[in-house]
């Protein structure tokens, strides 16, 4: 009986893997439908959230818009499918969505066993700690014996356990279901420390009655590279998504912004020329103005960053790891040539 069960599970997994990998021609599908179906979160500040005009916005949403601009010439032609953490990979495997851009951490297990490919990293995140200022803690190494607020069922929980074991420290976990509950818990003093991905800590800090009273500690205890995901086995589409993201980063490096892109079109810089016109688009199966459309309608990576999570937003996150490689960060795109 047990053997049958295991066999059945294996067959199911193989079947779903097969379904994930045999599919091809997403690029043609998207062109034919005239719209891109993009999986986003059900509401994550700065990454994908409905803004005050009930329109999806955020850094992850901008990746969807960039791909739509590159493929269809119109960043508005995106259908957003809000997905929970549990169903996101199934939605991608089953073809319900064309791409997934939902603050998904690139890990070995996901990349190798789920029939999916990560098309790059649009945000380098990492788990951090937030403490109340009057606790007087300057570093995470002083947190021995602390009560820590966490959200249930996330990798955060596991990272936290790893970190404290490694440092030989003790902690008491106070588990909450949603982020607004953990904020209330932190505020009412149920815990000394709130832990989550750093990008989210900044978002949660705004929700405190007195945001100036809380401080995010400098330690980052995990690597969370977040990026867009596509189905495995569809290389043409994989390239389109990957290079749409690279085009945004390259545009920032070349100094092309949504404001100056029209004048930059006549620039003498060969790199700019290759990005905005030239045959790079043809090789991806797109029009030659793909790069122009991305920068004109969505902006370069820096613009998208500042608008959604940086200085232009309520989150006010610094560039940090997400600065360009030439400015001490990790954002590095291969050249378009």
């Amino acid at each position, binding site marked *: 009986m047990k053997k049958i069960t295991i066999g059945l599970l294996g067959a*199911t997994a193989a*079947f*779903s893997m097969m*379904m994930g990998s*045999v*599919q091809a021609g997403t690029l043609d599908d998207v062109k034919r439908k005239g719209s891109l179906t993009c999986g986003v979160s*059900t*509401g*994550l*500040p*700065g990454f994908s*959230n*409905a*803004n*005050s005009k*009930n329109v*999806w916005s955020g850094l992850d949403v901008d990746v969807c818009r960039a791909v739509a601009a590159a493929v269809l010439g119109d960043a508005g032609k995106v*259908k*957003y*499918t*809000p*997905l*929970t953490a*549990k*169903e996101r990979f*199934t*939605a991608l*495997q*089953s*073809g*319900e969505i064309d791409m997934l851009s939902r603050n998904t951490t690139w890990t070995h297990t996901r990349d190798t066993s789920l029939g999916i490919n990560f098309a790059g990293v649009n945000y380098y995140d990492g788990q951090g700690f937030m403490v109340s200022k009057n606790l007087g803690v300057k570093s995470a190494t002083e947190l021995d014996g602390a009560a820590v607020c966490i959200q249930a069922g996330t990798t955060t929980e596991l990272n936290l356990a790893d970190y404290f074991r490694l440092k030989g420290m003790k902690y008491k976990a106070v588990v909450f279901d*949603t*982020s*607004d509950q953990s*904020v*209330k818990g932190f*505020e009412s003093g149920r815990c000394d420390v709130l832990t989550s991905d750093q990008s989210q800590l900044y*978002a949660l800090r*705004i*929700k*405190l*009655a007195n945001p100036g009273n809380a401080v995010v500690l400098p330690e980052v205890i995990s690597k969370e590279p977040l990026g867009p995901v596509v189905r495995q086995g569809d290389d043409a589409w994989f390239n389109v998504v990957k290079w749409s993201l690279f085009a945004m980063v390259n545009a920032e490096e070349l100094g092309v912004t949504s404001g100056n892109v029209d004048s930059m079109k006549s620039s003498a810089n060969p790199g700019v020329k290759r990005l905005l016109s030239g045959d790079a688009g043809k090789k991806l199966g797109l029009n030659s103005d793909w790069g122009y459309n991305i920068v004109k309608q969505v902006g370069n990576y820096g613009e998208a960053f500042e608008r959604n999570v940086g200085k232009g*937003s*309520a*989150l006010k996150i610094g560039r940090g790891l997400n600065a360009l490689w030439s400015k001490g960060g990790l954002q590095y795109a291969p050249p378009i040539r």
Partner: protein
Amino acid sequence: MTDLEHPSLAPPVSSVGIVGWMRQNLFSTPLNAGLTLLAVGLIYFLLVPLFEWAVWNADWRGSDQSDCTSGGACWVFIRARLDLFIYGFFPTSEYWRVDVVFALLAVLIVPQFFDRFPRKGWIGLFTLIGFPIIVYFLMMGGSFGLEPVETGKWGGLILTLVLAFVGIVAALPIGIVLALGRRSTMPVIRTICICFIELWRGVPLISVLFMASVMLPLFLPEGVNFDKLLRALIGIVLFQSAYMAEVIRGGLQAIPKGQYEAARALGLGYWKSMSLIILPQALKLVIPGVVNTFIALFKDTTLVLIIGLLDILASVQSAIVDPAWRNVSTEGYLFAAFSFWVFCFSISRYSQALERKLQTGYSR
């Protein structure tokens, strides 16, 4: 001898008027006096701050966080994001279509609250059959010159109502058929009905929705993809009809055997005796149970948030995390709770009115 009628003295001040009423009802014994004081204290320490927060000190006018200055509830948030809570992501230019649905629903429901409204039965029948068809064409668009709106853009209150209405309207007839099937003398039909009911009643709704959303697409052939909302609706209807069947079966079992025999003695066949004699009595008996199931379903629709459908509760939650606002979760959840209470309370009142009208001497 004359009867000299003494004018009665006025009762002592302590036993009439407000003071008398209070002495009699609030301070009749030391225990009651203590309880009264305790209750007054509770009201003072709980309700007064609540009132101050929710009404007296609250901010009602404005458009963003900067208008919430008085320290009380920030109802500005609800006002500013009301469109999301009611229409979801429906295109702004097409809001009128949702408004028409709301208006039509109100117009169709109101006659049911009056006893002698002309052609009330037909209006009711239209609400159950014609209305969903109209809503379908109005909301989906794509015909009659309406712009198509994919179901992914539905959300908020209208999505909650669609889920609940379809669940209620479809589950009742299926439930009746299943209940009759379970009591049938034909073994195949009876077995099928029992299996169906016990299977669906044995699993939680949350896992039904999860299967419909996550597992089902994996087993469908490549390229076959049917709408997520439709999948959720089918799951809800199947689940709900199993519950409904058991409630109705309870009513069927309460009908005395004599009624069945009398129907047969009159020469009525199975369907006629059921539709004319048994079901009218049985359904009347189970109104409280049926309404209970409806209300439970109405509230259970919030579970669709685990499959990424943004109903009213999920859209409130997604607005709460918006960094443009401070912590407004209390206001948001209160709004969602109040919306649910309004609908559930209305359903409950309607069912009580229906019971009173149909009562034939069972009630005490």
